[in-house]
């Protein structure tokens, strides 16, 4: 039986897939989540969307899209792309909550002050609300990264060979039940730690002086 050591490159390769899923999923989630948060901030009722995306298990969303919606629409979207879309849609619901609470935490007095010097509403959003809200969101956002990292393993249902899938293959091929998962766990831990640390570093550099613990 081949040893687990031989499979290490194979396992590591999975990180590329996992990280692509995470990066693209988070980006999609951001590009949808931020506008949704802004719209909700100004009173739009988008609860139905958030409720649906948060309440639906990822595997259900994945299957719904891949076996139901896309064929019904007649479009052929591949497993990887569908995974990204499913991850992104779900993330957008959570990210919109993060951004909404951040927007709400910006003191409304600043909004009135911005208007009082003649700013149009979109300028208020661009120059006063977003710069502060985005900075405030960073800590919660790194949470979203960590969660997305774990969620990405579900994409194997569509044949995307990310880390956990490979661990399973290795376990079967080598007869070793524990070691491959242990290594996968270490890999996930490292990726999570690297990502959240990076975000933490960025946060420290851009943090608004005067927010908790800064200055």
């Amino acid at each position, binding site marked *: 039986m081949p040893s687990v050591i031989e499979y290490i490159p194979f396992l590591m390769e999975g990180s590329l897939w996992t990280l692509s899923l995470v990066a693209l999923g988070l980006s999609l989630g951001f590009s949808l989540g931020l506008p949704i948060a802004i719209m909700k901030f100004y009173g739009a009722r988008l609860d139905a969307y958030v409720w649906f995306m948060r309440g639906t298990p990822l595997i259900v969303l994945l299957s719904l899209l891949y076996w139901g919606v896309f064929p019904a629409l007649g479009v052929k979207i591949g497993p990887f792309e569908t995974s990204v879309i499913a991850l992104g849609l779900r993330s957008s619901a959570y990210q919109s909550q993060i951004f909404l609470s951040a927007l709400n935490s910006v003191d409304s007095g600043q909004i009135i002050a911005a208007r009082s010097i003649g700013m149009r509403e979109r300028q208020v959003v661009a120059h006063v609300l977003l710069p502060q809200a985005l900075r405030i969101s960073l800590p919660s956002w790194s949470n979203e990264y960590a969660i997305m990292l774990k969620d990405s393993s579900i994409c194997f*249902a569509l044949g995307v060979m990310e880390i956990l899938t490979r661990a399973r293959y290795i376990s079967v091929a080598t007869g070793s039940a524990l070691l491959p998962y242990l290594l996968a766990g270490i890999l996930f831990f490292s990726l999570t730690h690297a990502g959240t640390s990076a975000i933490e570093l960025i946060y420290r550099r851009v943090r608004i002086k005067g927010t908790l613990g800064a200055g």
Partner: protein
Amino acid sequence: MVGRYIAVLLLGLLLGAAVGYAIPKQGSCLFERSKFSDAPSGEVTIIYGFDANYPPFTVMQPNGTPMGFDVDLMNLIAEKYGWKIVYKPWDWSTIVTALENGDIDVIASGMTFNAARSQKIWFSVPYYSYVHQLVVRSEDKRSFDEILNSNEYIAVQLGSTSDEWADRLIKAGYKFKKLGLDSYVSALEALLDGRASAVITDSAFLGPYLKKDPYLAAKVKVLGSIGAPNVYAIATRPQDKWLRDKINEALEELMNSPKWNELLKKWGLD
């Protein structure tokens, strides 16, 4: 205002999904033409779907390509006709749907022929037969019936035919608790460390596995077989008549040649 539009959009999404599911799958009608209903012109590329979770039939190699009895089988068939094979690993739980949908063209992955499956996908001639077995630790002196009525854990691979057997036995009144794990390998580990008192697996997996690991073979013993023998076959879409005929032709030829025994021996399946 916007919220209402979004809600309608979502409803549409759900409806679309339901429709997508409900529409009789394009190609479920036998007389509709599909990719391999007739001999295709030009180069033939077969997308080969498998779940590399099942030694010695399909296992993943360090370089990312699969190996195993079924892999060799498909490669031999492809070689005979000059076909190109593209490997597509897929999760067992959705592999049949993948075949129906056209993401893959064949499944050769230790797939058991059964009546339920043959409603949606069609099988080639069987190429291997096996039987389900109850495995216990060597020093366990209990009988077959005693184990099945012990009220202890019996481990199986989730989603496999042995999983179905465990459910059937429990329903028939046998008193034990099912421990579902992700693979037969994990199930055996559970047996060795005491989390389970027995494992239901199949001879197709167990035979070669024990042959490769005499250390393990000494610690377990097969107590008996469960149910009638089963067979493995290669699966295709119902309308891919041409493909299936070709596969059957190749299989019959192969099984009648000395190459067959060589293949079985190579993977410990003799």
